[in-house]
């Protein structure tokens, strides 16, 4: 129902401008791709694309399926049942968010290595020699699926859990009274109803996976992203690399469109009134214990094990080399940058999505989310190219018109870093706020309008408060993501400035990650702050 009186022009223009700014790096990449020739494609199609495409697909499929299983399963356990330890699991299941993929990969390579603790213990127990003993190889696409899933599932858990909590009791009760068993209720009612939430969470997971460079490189998985890198770095062919990146972007866009079309005909709008929420079913005894143990598995694999490993390694490191003086400054930089970037990303996302609410077009939201589908370094290069041109134009103006030599105002400052974080993680902000908006019935807008509120009031006094939970969970994800971000930070940061992630990289760059254990531990610890905050807030809203 496009409604003339609802068109909110200033907001619409602002949203358009922000979308354009968010697209700058992508546009620069398209431009770069067009400069290239197709010479190398013959080679790529013959030798590079087929195997990497297969390996990337296997990885994405595996991680997708496993994160949906873990994410929705654990969300169901903590929302549908009431048992001892549920409150603990409720927030503990978020903990793996604080562990970057490159850290979990390094931890498990270490732990599961033939000379590591696990295999040594097994062998001693069985009295076997190293070569007689077979152990699954973590350095494989299967290892990658396993490790990535156990740190990325919280994206699905977070979005699905919110959906399960909102589910109205009546639907579940009807299903139960019709004779469905608990697992049937889960599979045939709760899961289909939560599909939009699962789709949002899973698409975040898949984009994190496809753009991962740290963990996949460690594990020796040949992904499309790695082939972009090797084309760029080894062939010194940025244009062709940009072509592969755009190609990958098109595949991702296609998949997102297919998923959206798939549920176009289904409507999930909740009624305007707050419905009675689904009551958790009390469980005791061995069933309660089973549920608790099940819920504890992802926490253990995704957090407790790598975290303990980091503790041990950090302890050894402090004994051996002491505490680096740079770490405190790096922590402050990390917190500052991540906070500012989170604030801006949320604000921009809010403007873009709410403009869509008033104008009923989601184009801006779709286009400005593209940054998440491009590997960090490649996006950073796109930003350098576009912002660099702007930067020189501004400096030229000052120099030639006013005779003032300003130097570069954007490149090599924190501004660029915050810009790249915002572009990269805008998709999280938009996705989360959009699904929040889906739960705000349009009737509320009409009611507020009839009560004499103007559009700005509706935006700040109706929408914003109702969106709070969605905004908070998006802010958490963005904050943690900014904090963990490595490739773009490494390329764009100013002189003399380190974040925890770059410090970790710097200390570990000479071969082993043990050297960076303290920085890694700090990343996890700092990442815990928003996780715990979020957990507390979501408990209050229950």
């Amino acid at each position: 129902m496009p409604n003339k009186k609802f068109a909110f022009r200033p907001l619409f223009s602002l949203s358009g401008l922000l979308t354009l700014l968010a697209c700058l790096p992508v546009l620069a990449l398209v431009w770069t791709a067009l400069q290239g020739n197709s010479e190398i494609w013959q080679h790529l199609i013959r030798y590079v694309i087929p195997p990497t495409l297969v390996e990337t697909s296997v990885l994405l499929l595996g991680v997708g399926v496993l994160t949906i299983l873990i994410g929705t399963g654990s969300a169901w356990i903590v929302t549908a049942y009431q048992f001892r330890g549920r409150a603990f699991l409720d927030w503990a299941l978020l903990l793996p968010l604080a562990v970057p993929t490159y850290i979990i990969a390094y931890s498990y390579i270490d732990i599961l290595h033939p000379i590591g603790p696990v295999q040594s213990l097994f062998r001693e127990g069985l009295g076997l020699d190293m070569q007689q003993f077979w152990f699954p190889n973590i350095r494989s696409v299967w290892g990658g699926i396993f490790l990535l899933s156990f740190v990325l599932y919280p994206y699905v858990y977070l979005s699905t859990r919110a959906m399960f909590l909102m589910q109205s009791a009546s639907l579940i009760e009807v299903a139960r009274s019709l004779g469905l068993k608990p697992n049937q209720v889960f599979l045939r009612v709760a899961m289909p109803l939560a599909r939009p939430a699962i789709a949002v969470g899973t698409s975040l997971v898949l984009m994190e996976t496809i753009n991962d460079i740290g963990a996949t490189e460690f594990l020796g998985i040949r992904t499309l992203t790695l082939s972009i890198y090797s084309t760029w770095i080894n062939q010194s062919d940025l244009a062709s690399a940009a072509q592969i990146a755009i190609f990958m972007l098109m595949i991702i866009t296609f998949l997102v469109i297919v998923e959206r079309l798939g549920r176009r005909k289904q409507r999930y709008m909740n009624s305007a009134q707050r419905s009675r929420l689904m009551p958790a079913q009390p469980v005791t005894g061995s069933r309660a214990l089973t549920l608790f143990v099940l819920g504890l598995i992802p926490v253990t694999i995704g957090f407790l094990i790598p975290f303990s490993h980091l503790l041990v390694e950090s302890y050894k490191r402090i004994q051996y080399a002491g505490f680096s003086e740079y770490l405190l400054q790096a922590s402050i930089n990390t917190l500052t940058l991540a906070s500012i970037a989170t604030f801006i990303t949320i604000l921009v996302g809010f403007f873009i999505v709410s403009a869509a609410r008033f104008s009923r077009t989601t184009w801006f939201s779709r286009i400005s989310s593209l940054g998440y589908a491009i590997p960090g370094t490649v996006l950073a290069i796109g930003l350098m190219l576009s912002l660099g041109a702007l930067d020189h134009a501004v400096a030229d103006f000052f120099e030639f018109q006013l005779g003032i030599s300003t130097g570069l105002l954007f490149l090599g400052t924190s501004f660029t870093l915050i810009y790249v974080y915002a572009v990269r993680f805008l998709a999280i902000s938009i996705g989360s706020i959009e699904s929040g908006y889906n739960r705000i019935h349009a009737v509320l807008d009409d009611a507020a309008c009839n009560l004499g509120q103007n559009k700005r009031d509706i935006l700040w006094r109706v929408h914003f408060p109702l969106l709070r939970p969605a905004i908070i969970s998006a802010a958490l994800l963005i904050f943690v993501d900014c904090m963990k971000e490595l490739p773009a930070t490494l390329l764009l940061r100013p002189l003399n400035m380190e974040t925890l992630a770059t410090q970790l990289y710097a200390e570990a760059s000479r071969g082993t990650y043990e050297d960076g254990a303290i920085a890694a531990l700090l990343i996890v610890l700092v990442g815990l702050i928003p996780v715990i905050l979020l957990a507390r807030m979501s408990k209050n809203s229950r």
Partner: protein
Amino acid sequence: MKPLSKVYLLLTGLVAFSGSWVHAAEVNLYTTREPVLMQPLLKEFSQKTGVKVNTVFIKDGLLERVKAEGRRSPADVMLTVDFGNLVDLVESGLTQRVDSKILNKSIPGNLRAANGHWYALSMRARAVYVSKDRVPLSAISYEDLANPKWKGKICIRSGSHPYNTGLIAAYIAHHGEKEAETWLRGVKANLARPASGGDRDVARDILGKICDIGVANTYYVGTMRTGDAEQQRWGNAINVVLPRFKNGGTHVNVSGAVVSKYAPNRKEAVQLLEFLASDHAQAIYAKSDFEYPVKPGVKIDPIIASFGKLKVDSIRLSDIARHRKTANLLVDKVQFNH
């Protein structure tokens, strides 16, 4: 959120400008060389000359960043590992000629650009690590790595890594593309695990009996054998052999420096390069980084010296650099990393 947003604004300002203060004597260094290695050297340079060094450590994209910054780039000196990177910077027109008697005297002709656009500062050899317990081996050729007797026994990092690209390019320079392809297929067939991880993993995997021999750089042995207990276990599990080409010597790679084309502090930039080529700095490269000094006469670390005399391959690095692209295409073609 109101008072908070003011704090945000203030902090943005602080963070944004902290990187761009202008001091008296300073030099801006863009480096892909690990900061852990450079810090002691840079500290000493500042103490000695009073010139402040601002650094940013970048992995990939150094070239693109300096290019985007154009004539307003604050970069004075760029330090990189791998001769390929040095050649790329020069070919992109981002460097300038340095005409320093001190540098030309300290660094042998084959380790610097003839036109003064790049200078090597340290050298490392692409060596073969050998299991101490299981493999009695004192000499090997690079060609021999493709010998089927090593089937399932070799560890190596990704074939696309610059260190391996350099080695494969050198192989092409010696034997031509066709033979290099056959050789690479042979090495691939001998791998004990997918080509991945880092150079130190080769030693660790030899200790873990995943493989018997492997290809890795020389200096890692120094850092492992002088590292913590765990590292020492890895480093002591192996012997190091300096392989040679059948018709040549051992393949080496370098770390080096260029002065950027628009360097705002050109004088200090050259000063820094001259310092890094001095006896004193070269000794630090040798002692704390376990590299071969480029300056003749500077002492090699005993651990590195114990590998035997290094006979550097006779083909010039700039000639090897020409084959890098082909080397990379070969790695894809033989599916080396799969």
